[in-house]
């Protein structure tokens, strides 16, 4: 592609045709402020409404100021990013946005991590000449769903959430509504999220620059549970948490902090510190067996077998197909997610083992995810109203707890998970990124089907950050067609292909968040930095390589629980504890709307 020359702040830069002024400036280290603009390159996330105008620059020969995020460079263009005209315009834009924004930063959940606050600091805003029409009164009620907290008075209409919900995830729960001061991004009829097609994937929260969309915070409930002498607290930690938590304490992205994380949970006072990786191995036993079962029947000539089998670990994905493809709900594996398998085992097998009543046990999960909060509140995961997992907290909430308890995270000596629900394999840790669940399943399925050891543990063909991927795995002559999608928009493409009979997959892995759990909505905010995603992704596979055992069925603790308690995978006891069923939520939505 031919390069063009532009001059930005008296410096020459050569860029490809079509490059925006913003990108060209970044190439030479000039950081033009942005607010509505949001981009994660390696995950193909783009929000460029050019609406906030904070990025305006002066282009010589052009009468008005140009928004740098959507204006393309032209040959020999001369740009000034810091003239007095530009700075004054940016200040005014910022003052106007702030004139309609609550100034309750001290109590805001986003404080310290808010892009609007950062800009106010950067521009040294000390007073505001403008007062918005609705500044003093709140127009919208605070809404708290099981996962997401929506404070729409803080919405600045950057529409990043709308882009994630509609373009990336194709969920369609959110849209810009109203006009003028009351304009915000909300649901149809401004109704509660639970009555919308929302999957609680939380990608809206992950990109919200301000405090309008945040997670429901359970930190104080956790502190209370730990302090209660009548309760036994059991905590599990998901794979993707260990490759991201360090960022909250200034560590390099991609640092693997499993040992420190375990030590921190013990220092916080949890009675038992266990690993969701353990139940990820258990998931592979159940889901893998289900796959082999369906496949064997199919190969024996039974064409009524529901294939392809779809993974069911991701709760936002489960919500998605229940809402959007309820007629296909016989396809996903009935295996519960690792979080819920863990909860079920903790409050049965483990509770019995330590002689604790389930009501006296508080089961907590630390997840990179916000949909997990919704998942653990589902009625089918409760026994007599008592949930298998009482609270699910995000990676960010755990970081808050650690800071609150004045634990010096980076200086912590490493600790080990407790036994028996703490032992795990490399196959479990890769659940944390797209392609990982199916790779773990293939590692086990191969050895179970062929009864031969895997020639090569690493299935590179299943890895990567492409939105939709496919590979054919040779299982000793049996050609296993695997599909992988991450991001619900990509999942939709695959599902529509299946519906149209256009694909011949045997098994498909789906994760709702782009990149999988490493970019889950509960993770430290990356503010669009794709290097952070890349670093977490690499760390997941490094963590896998570091594990002495890398196949789920070789986990001695998993083998023991089948011998001691569960019997066999997909057996009677397993079905009772580790499998679930799905609902048609399409009708539920319609009925509720009709009632209005």
């Amino acid at each position, binding site marked *: 592609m031919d390069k063009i020359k532009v001059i930005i702040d008296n410096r020459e830069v050569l860029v490809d045709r079509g490059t925006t002024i913003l990108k060209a400036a970044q190439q030479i280290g000039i950081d033009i402020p942005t607010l509505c603009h949001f981009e994660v390159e390696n995950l193909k996330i783009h929000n460029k409404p050019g609406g906030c105008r904070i990025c305006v620059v002066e282009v010589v020969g052009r009468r008005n100021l140009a928004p740098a995020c959507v204006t393309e460079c032209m040959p020999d263009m001369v740009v000034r990013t810091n003239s007095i005209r530009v700075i004054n315009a940016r200040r005014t834009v910022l003052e106007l946005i702030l004139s309609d924004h609550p100034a309750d930063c001290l109590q805001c959940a986003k404080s310290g991590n808010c892009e609007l606050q950062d800009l106010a600091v950067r521009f040294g805003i000390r007073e505001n000449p403008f007062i918005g029409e609705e500044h003093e009164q709140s127009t919208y009620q605070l809404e708290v769903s099981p996962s997401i907290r929506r404070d729409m008075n803080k919405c600045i209409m950057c529409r990043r959430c709308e882009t994630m919900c509609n373009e990336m995830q194709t969920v*369609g729960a959110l*849209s*810009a509504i109203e*006009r003028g001061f009351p304009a915000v991004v909300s649901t149809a009829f401004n109704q509660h999220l639970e009555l919308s097609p929302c999957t609680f994937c939380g990608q809206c929260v992950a990109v919200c620059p301000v405090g309008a969309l945040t997670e429901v915070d359970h930190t104080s409930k956790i502190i209370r549970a730990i302090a209660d002498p009548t309760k036994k607290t059991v905590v599990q930690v998901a794979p993707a948490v260990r490759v991201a938590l360090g960022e909250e304490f200034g560590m390099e992205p991609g640092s693997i902090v499993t040992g420190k994380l375990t030590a921190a949970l013990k220092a916080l006072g949890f009675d038992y510190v266990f690993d969701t990786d353990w139940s990820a191995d258990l998931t592979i036993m159940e889901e893998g067996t289900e796959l082999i079962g369906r496949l064997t029947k199919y190969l024996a000539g039974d064409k009524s077998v529901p294939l392809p089998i779809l993974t069911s670990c991701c709760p936002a994905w489960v919500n998605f197909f229940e809402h959007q493809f309820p007629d296909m709900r016989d396809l996903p594996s009935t295996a519960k997610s690792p979080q819920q398998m863990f909860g079920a085992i903790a409050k049965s097998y483990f509770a019995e083992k330590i002689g604790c009543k389930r009501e006296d046990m508080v089961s907590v999960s630390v997840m990179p995810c916000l949909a997990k909060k919704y998942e653990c509140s589902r009625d089918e995961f409760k026994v007599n109203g008592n949930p298998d997992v009482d609270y699910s907290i995000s990676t960010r909430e755990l970081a808050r707890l650690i800071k609150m308890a004045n634990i010096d995270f980076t200086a912590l000596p490493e600790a080990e998970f407790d036994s028996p629900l703490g032992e795990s394999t490399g196959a479990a840790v890769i659940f944390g990124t797209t392609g990982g669940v199916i790779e773990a399943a293939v590692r086990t399925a191969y050895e179970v089907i062929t009864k031969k050891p895997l020639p090569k543990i690493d299935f590179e063909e299943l890895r990567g950050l492409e939105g939709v991927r496919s590979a054919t795995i040779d299982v000793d002559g049996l050609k296993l067609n695997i599909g992988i999608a991450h991001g619900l928009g990509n999942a939709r493409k695959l599902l529509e292909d299946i519906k149209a009979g256009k694909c011949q997959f045997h098994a498909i892995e789906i994760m709702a968040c782009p990149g999988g759990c490493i970019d889950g909505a509960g993770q430290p905010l990356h503010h669009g930095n794709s290097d952070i995603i890349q670093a977490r992704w690499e760390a997941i596979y490094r963590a896998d390589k570091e594990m002495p055992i890398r196949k789920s069925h070789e986990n001695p603790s998993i083998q023991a629980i089948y011998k001691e308690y569960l019997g066999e995978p997909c057996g009677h006891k397993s079905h009772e504890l580790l499998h679930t069923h799905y609902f048609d939520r399409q009708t539920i939505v319609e009925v509720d*709307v009709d009632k209005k």
Partner: protein
Amino acid sequence: MKPEIREKIIEICNNFNNNPGELINILHGVQDFMGYLPAEAQELIAECLHIPTAKVYGVVSFYSFFTMMPKGKHPISVCLGTACYVRGAEKILDEFKRILKINPGETTPDGKFSLTSLRCIGACGLAPVAMIGDKVYGRLSPDKIQGIIDEYKD
């Protein structure tokens, strides 16, 4: 929703080839026919056009012409155009508001009257004017409003 209303909405969407780009025209069509745009109608339009209901609601809530409130049996429109305005139209509107206990854009709980304001009906010589249904009332003053409303107390 009655099946005939459902069918009519589907027909309107079909007339525009279920094209999402024609959403505003479709909403006009449905509002002309129903008098307002209830949630169920928006849901159905979204379904026909294969777009999220939130998007339809986004457009309905953006334009003040679209309403989710059913119109009363006797829709009242008070002109706030320049000629009427300078001759005291605001006081006329206030009197309607006071008597009916509703704001513009609302309908009385018994469904009898709804109140809106508009800009100029071309009867400036009679300013200030208001319309109830198709009937125009001119040279209004606040003390005449109660009497006019009473005409419709059937």
